């Protein structure tokens, strides 16, 4: 029973991190209709920004998250303005191609810049844990979970209750009407993409405190974020939390009861099931 409890906690904490990783992808997909295949590469870049802030400026990775997010927002804004705005109304295939290309370029630039060495963001407390009776709560994962949930809920409130958030949602729903109300779409697209990439960057910072990083971690993270977005649905950020938690717990339980090799089989199996049975996601509005 203790083991099950521990595995459920592991899965929940993992799920929180998953949700955080998927949040930016879901936002960009939901609003701009861009399936950003370079999403994982941006998570990787965020991890390196955090790593460098920690290593050279001694900024704690959690306290440094706003800086990481700001840097990545700027990167995201420029990428959208300079590159993705060109194809924003092109067929989906074009956006897939260009973001896939971007992923390759970013990955190889990262190898040039940072080498293929494996790195970790390792503050002194990274391995600490809180012991609650029979179960252990890893501190870094718990912090990452807290930040992930706070940012996701914050994202939801932002989209619902701020002017910019409303403008973003309006553009997603009806571009022409939004324009009539004075929304400047190119700027707004870039801001939205910037926010998505800032969230990816923050997720990268959190990821680096619990896992090793190297220039090649991106592709797998994109795939995972994609699955979570689909399972949770793109309608609202809370769906991403549900998707992330669901996947984290599912993978942990599969590893325990069936075997660790089947964790990925389970998560992508569920993805396929959701696509067949409920293509709008678990929390999405029924089609």
């Amino acid at each position, binding site marked *: 029973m203790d083991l099950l409890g521990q595995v459920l906690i592991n899965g929940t904490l993992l799920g929180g991190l998953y949700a955080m990783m998927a949040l930016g992808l879901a936002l960009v997909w939901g609003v701009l209709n861009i399936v950003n295949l370079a999403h994982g590469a941006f998570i990787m870049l965020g991890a390196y920004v955090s790593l460098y802030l920690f290593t050279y400026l001694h900024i704690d990775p959690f306290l440094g998250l706003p800086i990481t997010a700001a840097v990545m927002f700027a990167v995201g804004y420029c990428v959208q303005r300079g590159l993705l705005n060109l194809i924003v109304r092109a067929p989906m295939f074009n956006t897939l191609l260009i973001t896939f290309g971007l992923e390759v370029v970013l990955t190889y630039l990262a190898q040039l810049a940072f080498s293929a*060495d494996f790195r970790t963001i390792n503050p002194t407390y990274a391995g600490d844990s809180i012991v609650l009776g029979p179960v252990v709560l890893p501190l870094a994962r718990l912090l990452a979970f807290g930040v992930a949930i706070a940012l996701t809920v914050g994202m939801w409130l932002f989209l619902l209750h701020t002017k910019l958030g409303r403008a973003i949602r309006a553009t997603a729903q009806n571009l022409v009407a939004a324009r009539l109300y004075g929304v400047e779409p190119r700027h707004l697209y870039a801001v939205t993409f910037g926010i998505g990439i800032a969230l990816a960057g923050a997720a990268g910072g959190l990821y680096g405190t619990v896992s090793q990083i190297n220039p090649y971690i991106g592709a797998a993270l994109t795939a995972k974020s994609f699955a979570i977005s689909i399972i949770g649905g793109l309608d609202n950020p809370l769906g991403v939390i549900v998707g992330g938690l669901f996947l984290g717990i599912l993978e942990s339980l599969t590893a325990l009861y069936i075997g660790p090799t089947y964790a990925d089989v389970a998560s992508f199996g569920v993805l396929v099931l959701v696509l067949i049975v409920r293509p709008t996601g678990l929390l999405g509005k029924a089609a």
Partner: protein
Amino acid sequence: MLKISGLSAALVAAAVAMSSGSAAAKDIVLGASVQLTGPVANTGRYYRDAYQLAVDKINEAGGVKVGNETYKLALKLYDNQSDVNLSVRQYTQLVSRDKVNFLLGPFASNFALADSAVSEKYQIPMVQGGGASDQIFARKFKYIFGTLAPASHYFGSTVEMMKGLDPAPKSVALLYADDAFDVSVAEGTRPKLKEAGFTLAMDERYSTNATDFNSLLSQVKSKNVDAVLVAGHETEILNFVRQAKSLAVAPKMYSFTVGVPSEDFRKALGKDADYAFGMTAWLPSADLKDQWFGDAAQFAAAFKAKFNYDPDYHAASGAADVEAVVKAVENAGTIDPVKVRDALSKVDFDSLYGRIAFNANGQIDLPQTVIQIQDGKLVAIQGVHGKIAAPKYPMPAWDAR
């Protein structure tokens, strides 16, 4: 007139072709496809750098004597981007278009397993020090030679050491990735553990490139396992150790097939790397005499000076591959690939990496030395001749370090 000029032109062309042909014949070209980019680039670079260093050193020493002629070595290297399929295509290109004389290997068993089919088909010998899986050599291919010890023997010396530990570990968890190398390691280790009388409390296979070991670690803790043996890749091992710490899982010992000998591993983990056991078939000892480098210590110094990082056994085996080809060519007295293959099967010499003599399947067998990280340094614990240094055992709890 026209005919004559045509003929003379043909003669000139033939002469040019011959001269360029003979110039090219002065080079023995070694071809390889190595992971210079992609997820395995971190280890692939050992091979690129070791091949280059060995080729340069042998050329400096005068090159390769074949009968009365002296040849220089040249290296033709492709980057397979950590992609097995691309690697196979590049080896095919090396033998069919680039017409290299001999092949050196890629890194990793799954690559060597696929690439050796190319050397076999085209009958060009490949000497490789990157693939250890028994599968590579079980097919009785004639043109593949390997300088890593068989994967199934990797944990042999560790199990030997475990028998002598006090307090003796009783239960063991064997965890391994689902690829050619690690499955071979597990298959070889299982009977050794049983023979030694350990209880196999966990025997779990996980997906290659897994990042989450929390479920496995929680089981290690809940089953109170004494010793954990992991056969996996460096990225996995790094995550494993970090997650073990954060979940406060501290068995009496853990040992890993890879990672521990490399500088990168110790850098990434810092103090958390302490107490980790590992293994290596090679340490830069001055006892390993070598014709070209003097000894293994001089090789290590030259390597570090040129590439600015410490070589590990991957690099040493890579350099030994070049030396094995050279020895075989000199013994054969020709660069004919079939004759050199026969000479390779008979080579027997001392290299910076150890004694190189291939068995009937084409693999050498070097015993693994058990190593441990103690206070950030790599310490040899137990070698072929028994104990070298005292292991730090049992591993203390994470918060008691």
